[in-house]
């Protein structure tokens, strides 16, 4: 029972990249959706850390020193967790 609760809490703490506030450092948990292969090619992958820099129709994030702009539609396919929870 306690194990189930812990798992629930962990799922609750996940957000999509769209939902994260600007300036937050996050770690990618899962990539899921039709665009995830292209996201992987661009360098997005599980366990990768990134910072969200701007919000809007296309959002900008910084990952491994590179700035990447992706649409909201794609950002919804990037499930992340705040870095303090992840570490």
């Amino acid at each position, binding site marked *: 029972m306690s194990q189930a609760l812990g798992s629930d809490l962990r799922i609750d703490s996940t957000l999509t990249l769209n939902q994260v506030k600007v300036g937050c450092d996050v770690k990618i948990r899962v990539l899921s959706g039709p665009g995830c292969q292209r996201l992987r090619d*661009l360098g997005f992958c599980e366990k990768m850390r990134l910072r969200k820099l701007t919000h809007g129709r296309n959002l900008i994030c910084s990952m491994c020193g590179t700035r990447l702009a992706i649409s909201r539609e794609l950002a919804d396919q990037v499930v992340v967790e705040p870095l303090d929870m992840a570490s």
Partner: protein
Amino acid sequence: MQQSEDIHTIALLGNPNSGKTTLFNSLTGSNQKVGNYSGVTVEIKTGETRTPHGKRLRVWDLPGCYSLRAPSKDEQVAVDALSGKLDGEKPDLVVCVVDASNLERHLQLALQVIELGLPVVVALNMVDMAEKAGLRLDPAKLSEELGVPVVPMAADKGKGVIELKQALRFPFPAAAHAKWKTEGEDGDEARRDYILQICEVAARRTETHQSTVSDRLDAWLLHPVLGWVFFVGLMFTLFWAIFSWAGIPMGWIEAGQDAVAGWVEGLMGEGDLRSLLVDGVIGGVGGVLVFLPQILMLFFFIGLLESSGYMARAAFLMDGVMGKAGLSGKSFLPMFSSFACAIPGVMATRTIDSAKERITTMFVAPWMSCSARLPVYFLIVPLLMGESEGGSWKQALVLFGIYALGTLTAFVVARLLRGKLGPEKDHTGFMLELPPYRMPQWGYIIRHVVERGWSFVAKAGTVILGLSILLWALSTYPKLDADDDGEALAHSAMGRMGAVIEPVVKPLGFDGRIGTAILTSFAAREVFNSSLAVLFRVEESDDDVETRDSLREKLALAKWPDGTPIFTTLSMISILVFYIYALQCLPTSAVVAKESGSWKWAVGQFVFMTGFAYAAALVVFQGGKLLGFG
């Protein structure tokens, strides 16, 4: 790219913005050429280099790509080149160019290439910038983990190029074993885990996010308000510079063309051969060459914006606006370039990932009013306003309206066409890497400008030369023994066509002479003015404005057989509308055919735009008459 016995081929492969082309230029110097493959719209550059031991190597610069899964045209070319499908020849070694600051991302491609079983050397590029950003690199450890030679370098500063050439000495290193690959495990996951493991030891980065100069610049340049102010200001400056500065070398070319024509006229007696050389060959080639300065300047600015890193920001800002036309930010530059000339605009569509978006952009780009239409607008607009040519605000307003009408129609048609083509099969949404701002690489820009300029002169020039000769023949034969140019033209095949097409153009408010002038301007729009001058028997003056003034006087007096004026307000608006919409530029059609990989698109575009122009002019003239105007 035929392989000879003693020369081996190396291929440069890397993500976009990894410095691959800079390395290619460092390796090959001026010893390179651009190869085009039929049906493929992207290019592979080939060049030659020598190792320090004097061995000659052929170098391929493959298109930048993120993976070998090949969803885009660029990536397909790279995959085909590596597998030997392109020309039946596989590279003997692959140099994977990786950005040292982004190993987590760039090593994905390097690992995929190693898995192909090809010998690989990793060029660890931009190490200076990576170290500046606080990364602690260990190339020896990286080499040990990957099982391939790793050469640290800064290609833009020429550092490490000799060391790379040393690593390319013969015999090439053996293909490495992909030790991350395990039976039954997902390849992507295995690569990802292995890369993170390598980076932990060979490319350690500081934990905290560091604000860079690019971050600080982007805070201004991508600002929701200030970013737009800068962007609009920059685009206006660029536009103005292309129009005003290019006028000077264009004048030189025209003067040179006149001098050559004068020289030929002085050298040869009057006759058909002289007429062919002066009117057909020199006139035809000159008609193309005169646009070269604008094209070179446009490519210079494009190179400057690309090289500095701002181009990606412009695409980012414009994505929302272009989205309303069913396109994305990546279509902005081709559309904008087309205001100067549709040819570089169509060429610039190569950067668009989505094939359907690319073809849509190519299709509507010629509706951005290009500079070749200006002489026609400058002739008709003052006549329409009943004024002489000059800086009247009313004329400027009409000109603005002309530009706006073309642009709006292009957006509406793009939206409809994009809807008709359906969603992209593998639509992934907008994604773009915003490279760091860098000082422009002048060598790259100049090379780019020269390459594009030469490509324009060689390819478009040959097409227009052939057609100019054809048009000359049509407007010269059959000959009439009369001194009157107008009568001779009326007697020629072209003139007879004018008489035949009068019933076709009459509903638009045009007589046979205007119809003939329109027909001659299908090779190049600006021919309309000189054809009208011949047909309405106007003495040409050295000064273009003076010639247009006297032509306008003649046109204002031109009458139908029943005595009513030909050039009414309605017929003039009808001419303008026709010129806004008609695709009267054969080099553009040739470039569209080449870039789309099919003549069908070029023919379809020509038929659609000309049909649209006819219908729009018909609606304006007949609708106007019905409403009691004119």
